[in-house]
């Protein structure tokens, strides 16, 4: 008797709680749309978009921007970090303060087959570019957890990852596509080449990577002729400042007071100024397209972080058109660049394709179509 009456009481609380929640959810949607101007959908409402569910899927994404869900997400992430040290599904902590992207350590079913398929894709792209008189250089950026392994504090990478970047690059070279693995360049003794709370390299790493790539390109038999007009690049370095890390944001704990977050990186940021080399620039070139970059860089956020392009331009003494895309993974930037007016109307002479090691074995379904 007592049990059933207490259950009825419990149900009453649940009923009230549920009604309050539903009312709050409805109010949150209303505030999101009316007050915060969150669009109901960003997807143009067309019959095909309605029929294949693009409109409804986008509506669901937009709902996440309304007050209640976004607040709930931040509270959950913050509480999980503070209470049990959990950084969510996408981020892991190695040594205190050192964060890593969990994707780097993800073992994918048929990962080897996926990497082999991507190798074929790159080889086909290289062949197509070669037919247009364009060279391709593939650059594989090693995982942070490979280079900064000493900061994993005893957690080990899976043995099957040991040779995945090097073997892939070797096979690409064997297939006649110039490729390089940046592991050796970035594995500097007693020097960190990656940021602590960010998935990307720091300026030391970006500089080392750019220097290795520069050396390889300059040693390539006809690459110097393909770099375009020489430019002079000057670098100035600012005083060190705190830098928020993308892994803190990815873990969803960037809203916490700084004292409760992993300590931020402190970074002295470089600024590069590129000027045409007067010795190699004539009047005609100034008005023609000779001043356009002959080198195009496609890739991921690595190519957009820590001044990798600045260091590369400084090393090559040539302009580099940066067509990399954040979150581009294996082929996001390539798919966008090869179909862009920039590529069609002013094709480069050399394409550098930067690929993160962690993208090699991901499921193929994530890739845009390149062929």
């Amino acid at each position, binding site marked *: 008797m007592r049990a059933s009456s207490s259950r009825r009481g419990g149900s009453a609380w649940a009923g009230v709680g549920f009604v309050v929640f539903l009312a709050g959810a409805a109010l949150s949607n209303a505030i999101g749309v009316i007050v915060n101007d969150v669009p109901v959908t960003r997807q143009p409402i067309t019959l095909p978009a309605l029929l294949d569910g693009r409109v409804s899927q986008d509506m669901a994404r937009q709902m996440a921007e309304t007050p209640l869900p976004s607040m709930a997400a931040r509270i959950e992430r913050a509480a999980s970090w503070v209470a049990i040290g959990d950084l969510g599904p996408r981020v892991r902590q190695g040594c205190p303060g050192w964060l890593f992207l969990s994707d780097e350590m*993800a073992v994918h079913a048929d990962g080897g087959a996926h990497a082999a398929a991507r190798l074929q894709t790159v080889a086909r792209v290289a062949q197509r570019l070669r037919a247009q008189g364009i060279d391709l250089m593939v650059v594989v950026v090693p995982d942070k957890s490979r280079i900064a392994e000493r900061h994993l504090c005893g957690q080990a990478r899976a043995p099957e990852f040991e040779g995945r970047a090097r073997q892939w690059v070797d096979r690409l070279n064997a297939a006649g596509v110039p490729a390089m693995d940046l592991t050796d360049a970035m594995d500097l003794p007693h020097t960190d080449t990656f940021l602590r709370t960010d998935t990307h390299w720091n300026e030391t790493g970006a500089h080392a990577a750019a220097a290795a790539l520069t050396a390889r390109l300059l040693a390539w038999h006809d690459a110097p002729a393909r770099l375009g007009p020489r430019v002079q690049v000057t670098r100035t370095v600012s005083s060190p400042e705190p830098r928020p890390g993308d892994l803190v944001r990815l873990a969803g704990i960037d809203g916490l007071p700084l004292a409760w977050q992993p300590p931020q990186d402190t970074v002295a940021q470089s600024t590069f100024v590129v000027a045409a080399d007067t010795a190699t620039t004539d009047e005609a070139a100034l008005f023609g397209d000779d001043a356009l970059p002959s080198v195009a860089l496609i890739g991921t956020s690595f190519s957009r972080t820590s001044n990798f392009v600045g260091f590369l331009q400084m090393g090559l003494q040539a302009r580099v058109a940066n067509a990399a895309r954040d979150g581009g993974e294996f082929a996001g930037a390539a798919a966008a660049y090869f179909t862009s007016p920039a590529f069609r109307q002013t094709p480069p002479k050399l394409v550098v394709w930067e690929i993160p090691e962690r993208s090699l074995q991901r499921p193929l379904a994530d890739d845009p179509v390149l062929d």
Partner: protein
Amino acid sequence: MVFASLEFLTLFLPAFLIVHTLSPARWRNAVLLVASWIFYGWWSPILLVLFICLTLVGWVGGLAIDRSGTDRQRMRTLIVFIGVNLGILCWYKYANIVVETIDSVRGWTGALPLEWERVVLPIGLSFIVLQSISYLIDVQRRDVDADRSLIQFGAYQAMFVHLIAGPIIRYEWVRHELRARKVDWAQFASGARRFMIGMSMKVLVADTLAPLVDLAFALPAPSLADAWLGCLAYSLQLFFDFAGYSAMAIGLGQMLGFHFPENFNHPYLARSIQDFWRRWHLSLSTWLRDYLYIPLGGNRLGALRTYVNLLLTMSIAGLWHGGDNWNFLLWGMAHGLALTGARLWADAHLPAVPALLSRVLTLAFVMLAWTLFRAHDFAAALAMYRGQFGMNGLALTSALAFAMRPAHGLAILLGIAGVMAPALAQARVRVPPRVLARVDAAWPVAGFVLSFGLITSRGAVPFLYFQF
């Protein structure tokens, strides 16, 4: 749409409950029908057309059987409409695997694969078809009258609360409530509590463990610890996902004035494999019993026929579960063999196995069979079995160790506690009744709030039985 999603919790459900509550009683089935079609068509409105066709087939089939004169005519009509239902199910569910199998056979002779565009399985099709078949058979047997109202029958078929992942609701169970149902605060509150508990089961345990399971089953050579951790995590994930969803369905039904039977009864505490099937996915196991096993002759035609019927029924149950690969059929056959073995044991009057040992052996068998159920193909299942029998080393490998998060540990502990709940309830721990009452009242609400936070922060993970 799935229950553990923003669009359901913050848009669909509040809007539906307001409209349903404010509607006059005679309009409620129409409201339920339209809302259910919106729910079903949310992700892929085009598939709604197929669903509406299936509803029409079921409704017309019922009327056609009802109007057939003799028993023989009724049976013929029934066979035609069951054939239509099964034809649709088989096309969407098994066409891909049949073509793949033909391709692999052709591959041995060096022939090129057939040109084939994969068929996409509409969500919840298997549940919809089983419901339709049970209705048609019940009408043919004169257990229920054919429903003359398309709206009422459509509301039964489409009812979003159990549409995409069961429980498999028989028309007989809800026909009175379809005509007139009482919605009051006590029912609503009780349903809300059940819904919150179900949501907590799915989100806090099942969805939390999902990435760990994915990784464990992707390892090319899992160690003993990897394989059993993955298998344990999957066993918990599957149960909490499915039982959680069933609890949500039962709770939502209650909020609307329906009373659905329970679908799970602590299956991992089963004393034998027969006992397991009396506790796991009850709406399916009773469906198989009433519409397949008994019509096949059940255990009325002698021992040998009983064994064959058991094996056949469970093999069909396996096939029903999956069309991606033949593992599901093997899983069903394994359960069929286990049930047959248990029956043989009993028929031979062998001594009963001690209760605790029997529970342990049953659970071990169920978990080993889940490995077959979860692996994406037979080779992956074999790799996992090699791990489970210690053929790839013993210790946890680095890939799984790195993937383990504090949340996984908590979810496993929570899951084990949930599985063991009846045993824990019997433990003689002195807790003041007032404290117990407060905990009992607070935890579903707290679990639901935490679940909502997790849904928003990680994005909804689709329900495991979504495409069965």
